[in-house]
């Protein structure tokens, strides 16, 4: 029968297509493993106390201590600004107003921000915070610029988290005579907390990895920033300078390794939190 011949061909087509798909998928996995493996392997010899605690002024010129501190400062300050703003903006969009022109304008602006290249944020920080507000190259400027960068991430993940809070919680609270804000504060946000934290993790990853936006806002001084007006260099910026100027390959590997570890930690935590947000069934919140 002619049909059986055709069937045979189709089977062969399918086997071929699936083989190609599997090979290409494997490529993705290999790319990831190669990046992580290559950097880790080469970083091992450089990971020592000198690297961790030293400063670039030391003879071996590899210490990352000031950059690590600057990165931490930047992350903490940025979250302190962007987290409340982003959460409150999302609360407004999800809990206070209905879909309409206002919401869609805000949403499209947020999407535009999310798709904006880092370098544009860098220029904005340079001109607006640096020149017009007189912040120059400083921790303050870097913080404000980075806050704008992560604002869309925090807004989006918070909106998602709010969406997953059962409507019956809101109704139960409102029916008891609680105000909107009491309902949001005491029931909705607390219940959306793990989801929001998962977004926070993504935001941390973004700030830690950011370079182009910080070049002209935070600057690249290799000392610990001791005031908001000090310039400072983050780990990612440090890696760029080491790689671009060929200063220390060993130091570059070790710095890249630290960045990759941070990314992995952030991803794992985000996923754990997201899973917790999904399996909310028997979960508890405090008062």
């Amino acid at each position: 029968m002619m049909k059986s011949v055709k069937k045979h061909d189709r089977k062969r087509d399918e086997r071929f297509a699936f083989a190609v798909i599997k090979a290409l998928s494997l490529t993705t996995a290999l790319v990831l493993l190669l990046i992580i493996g290559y950097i880790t392997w080469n970083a091992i010899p450089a990971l020592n106390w000198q690297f961790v605690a030293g400063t670039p002024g030391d003879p071996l010129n590899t210490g990352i201590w000031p950059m690590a501190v600057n990165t931490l400062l930047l992350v903490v300050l940025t979250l302190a600004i962007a987290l409340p703003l982003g959460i409150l903006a999302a609360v407004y969009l999800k809990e206070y107003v209905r879909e309409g022109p206002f919401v869609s304008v805000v949403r499209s602006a947020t999407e535009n921000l999310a798709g904006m290249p880092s370098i544009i944020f860098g220029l904005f920080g340079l001109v607006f915070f640096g020149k017009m507000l007189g912040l120059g190259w400083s921790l303050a400027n870097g913080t404000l610029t980075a806050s704008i960068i992560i604002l869309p991430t925090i807004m989006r993940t918070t909106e998602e988290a709010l969406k997953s809070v059962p409507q019956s919680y809101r109704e139960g609270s409102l029916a008891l005579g609680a105000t909107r804000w009491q309902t949001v504060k005491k029931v909705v946000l607390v219940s959306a907390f793990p989801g929001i934290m998962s977004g926070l993790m993504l935001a941390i990853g973004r700030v830690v990895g950011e370079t182009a936006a910080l070049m002209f806002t935070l600057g690249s001084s290799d000392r610990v920033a001791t005031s908001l007006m000090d310039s400072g260099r983050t780990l990612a910026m440090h890696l760029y300078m080491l790689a671009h100027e060929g200063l220390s390959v060993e130091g570059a590997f070790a710095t890249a390794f630290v960045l990759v570890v941070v990314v992995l930690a952030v991803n794992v935590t985000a996923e754990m939190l997201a899973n917790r947000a999904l399996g909310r069934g028997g979960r508890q919140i405090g008062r």
Partner: protein
Amino acid sequence: MASLTLFPKAGNKASAEKRTERIIKGGLMLCALLSVLVVLLITVMVFKEAWPAIKQQGLLNMITGTSWKPTAAKPRFGLLPMIAGSFAVTALALLIGVPVGLATAIYGAELATVRVAPLVGRMAGILAGIPSVVYGFFGLMVIVPAVRLLGGTGMGVLSAGVVLAMMILPTVISVSEAAIRAVPGEYREASLAMGATKWQTIWHVVIPAAKSGIMASVVLAIGRAVGETMAVILVAGNIPVIPKGLLSATRTLTVNIALEMGYVRPGSLHYSALFAAAAVLFAFIMLINLSVRMITRGGSR
């Protein structure tokens, strides 16, 4: 109107509570408006700073000018080499990255077992989280030497394209995978019930049904590749000439800004010309954002 207050000691609290609610609502609205404000500020800032150069040089002249010599005695501010550079590396990145990413998405959504499937999303998450500068460094240490075997310095269109291809993978994978997963199971069942093979079902039913999501993933990937700076700067060679081939060095719009903004004198023509480059980039990204919106909106109907 009779008071309905229940707790006597709450007394006059009701009106105070209402006022607090109003203040809170106003404050929340300001937070929501922040992103609108920032987008407006960015738009105004980019074009305002770019204006002197555009006025003096002419927009068309800048876009079609093939020579970028900002510090020469008779400075030239042609942006075409950078536009061509951005285009070349992005096109190459798509050529390599989209098939790999799409195949991975199909694998994750259609072929992988329940235990393996989540790994695909996790891989995309980690790839998306790795900082640009780490990709650039990896490219510099691994891709560039490999490309050098083909001749030249190794820095150029090919290296940048390969590095960018890796960087757009997570975008293509996660957005496409979500689109494929969103295709209703009944479509698959209907096709399989008619005797189609799994592959025929995927190719003729599932992928066409997920078309708009897949297109959105590609457009988002274009945005990511065009906007990337730090990874490209380390592997592209950065010479501002129109690339002649895969191995020639190239400079993108983003790299042009990053390399020269550090030493340029604010207010000078050179400074303004860099903002003109940023304005071209900005306009392109806006176009991308708009396309994504249109594609996803059309697809949801």
